[in-house]
């Protein structure tokens, strides 16, 4: 019986989706923390999926390691650092804000500021100084007023 189940599991192996019941921690608070963290960690062998949604074996391993660290009393940051140290910053779905990544994070607010300034300058009513009338215009005006 076990062999059959094993075969079925292998056959359907890649069908297992995301978090499996047996992986989950008994403590709901710790499990909630693990779930929250696993949505921001990328599965290293997948196409743009977090380990929370991925069905790859490696993602499963990472989910289990993450839960082991959390159960061992790591804080969220410590647990993530533990994985980043081993798999690189590639697994961070939200890139850190160090080095050139500052440009990434601040490009939106920065551009918004520039756009608002340009927009404001373009719309702002321009103070056009009143041009004095030319001699011809003055003559014509006098003529109209006096007629």
């Amino acid at each position: 019986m076990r062999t059959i189940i094993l075969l079925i599991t292998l056959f359907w192996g890649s069908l297992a989706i995301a978090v499996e019941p047996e992986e989950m921690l008994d403590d709901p608070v710790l499990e909630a923390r693990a779930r929250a963290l696993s949505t921001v960690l990328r599965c290293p062998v997948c196409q743009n999926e977090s380990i929370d949604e991925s069905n790859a074996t490696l993602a499963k391993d990472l989910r289990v390691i993450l839960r082991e660290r959390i159960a061992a009393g790591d804080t969220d940051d410590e647990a993530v650092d533990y994985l980043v140290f081993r798999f690189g910053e590639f697994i961070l779905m939200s890139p850190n804000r160090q080095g050139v990544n500052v440009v990434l994070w601040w490009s939106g607010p920065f551009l918004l500021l520039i756009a608002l300034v340009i927009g404001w300058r373009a719309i702002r009513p321009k103070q056009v100084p009143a041009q004095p009338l030319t001699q011809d215009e003055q003559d014509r005006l006098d003529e109209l007023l006096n007629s």
Partner: protein
Amino acid sequence: MLIELAHFSLILALVVAIVQVVLPAWGAQKSHIGLMSVAGPAALAQLALVGFSFGVLTWAFVVSDFSLALVYKNSHTAKPLIYKISGVWGNHEGSMLLWLLILVLFGAIAAVRGGGLPPRLLARVLSVQAAISVAFYLFILLTSNPFDRSAVPPLNGLDLNPLLQDPGLAFHPPFLYLGYVGLSMSYSFAVAALIEGRIDAAWARWVRPWTLAAWVFLTVGIALGSWWAYYELGWGGFWFWDPVENASFMPWLIAAALLHSAIVVEKRESLKSWTILLAILAFGFSLLGTFIVRSGVLTSVHAFANDPERGIFILLILAFFLGGALTLYAARAGTMQAKGAFSMVSREGGLVLNNILLAVSAFVVFVGTIWPLFAEIAIGRTLSVGPPFFDAAFTPFMIAIAVFLPVGSMLAWKRGNAQRTVKKLGPIAAFAVAVALLTYAVQSGRSALGPIGMALGVWIILGAALDFWLRSGRGAMSARIGRLMRLPRADWGKAVAHAGLGITFLGVAGITAWNQEDIRVAALNTPYDVGAYTVTLKGVERVQGPNYVSTFGTLDIAKNGRQFVTLNPEKRFYPVAAMPTTEAAIRNGIWADIYAVLGDPQANGGYTVRLYVKPLANWIWGGAILMAFGGFLSLTDRRLRVAAGQRRPT
């Protein structure tokens, strides 16, 4: 033989397109009416030739002609007919041919319906349009020929990727392409206007329907893709900030900005050069999207085609059309004189803010999308930019747009009265804040986005309704309703589209605030509770489908002790492609979806079962469809149909 004719027809179309680039442009320069009038028949000839090619390719898929390498790789005799047809564009070569078909179709429509345009402008528009098609003919013929034959035809094909054998995905690419390619018309109009050196209200009126149509198609295409991801990928996500999703989202944002700024050009003859720039950028982002999807340079769940050579070709096309247009823009934009001045607090001012927020948010998506590529090439850091970044960097722009939308859309043109508008909207604002507090009190999620989204959704919908109602003027109820009925379709479109945006906000907020999830090993015939529902796994059987075998589960769901619905989640295995898929079972409801997924069998005879309750999920796509419908209403406005033919005296 037919296949070779189709291939030859494509080459012939390339030649016709080259003629259509050169002669009308030359004629327009020399004011030679004969040369200019070549454009129309040439555009129709292109449509006939490419249509023939595409028809033959479709026929080859329908009759499973496996001598064609493309059919062999992407089809199978046992596949249902609809997926044989959708298989034509379920692969790189065929989808590029579809792209081209839509491109020449739009060119032909412009040629037929453009009789009212000044002949010189029409000739230039069609010439630019043909230049785009020349680039894509070359791309297809040189790098992605769909008409390659095998010397020894195989007996059967390799089948289409099972994930693509789905009604939602059958129509997702054509709609997206209609949108992408529709923006090519806005681009051609912009470049023609730059060459002419003039742009006026009439120009805006000609461009607007194309942009509107493109935006409507993009909206539907994106909604279809998101809906497909929701029910097919097995856990009910609806947006992943995947590079390929972003590729369609960036042109959508820019096209939305363009729609709004073209209104200002049309009504107030202002924001001209900005509108031209948006038209160029919108198509630029469409090409960039094509590059991202077709080169596979950014890793994505959609990686259907990973071919650097094709990627470089598209990059060259992008560089040529974007670079060329921007150079022309730099040289000519200064000549576009704005006529109408306006104060900061005015409808124009509101639309400028809308444009700034939409354009900057599109830019944020752009930076986030290409950042991994940039970081790897420039500084050798391999990193990821995923949903948490976009949630943090993009969402504030949407919140700002939602906050200002009702105010901006109610301000008067030229000079608005902020105080009076705010006073009118006061009660709605108070109500929206109450909704936020209520949501905060009763939500089960922890994010602040739930309450904020709920409030903003309500704010936008009621704001749109109030704006619309105030258009009816004063007097008796019946008179006011009668006046509403006679309002231009564009006003109806505005109200419907804005309300649709609000509904999408509510949908996203609902899922954020009240999503429920239950993952467990369910034993057969053992009821358990998820929220208000009682779930029982009744059985799991093997079922044979047309080209797959299915593990077919039966879940009874009861509510308040009464049978509510029976769900049948499946796991399918496609033997030809050797690929399994998960088919979630969803009970669609107005207030909540129940979403069930069958997992693996367990040692104790039970099965892993995932059950989600997704509140207001359908509002996300319902709102998107409403937005598209609003755009469609606006498209049928009498002004665009009639006045498009006449040049306003200036």
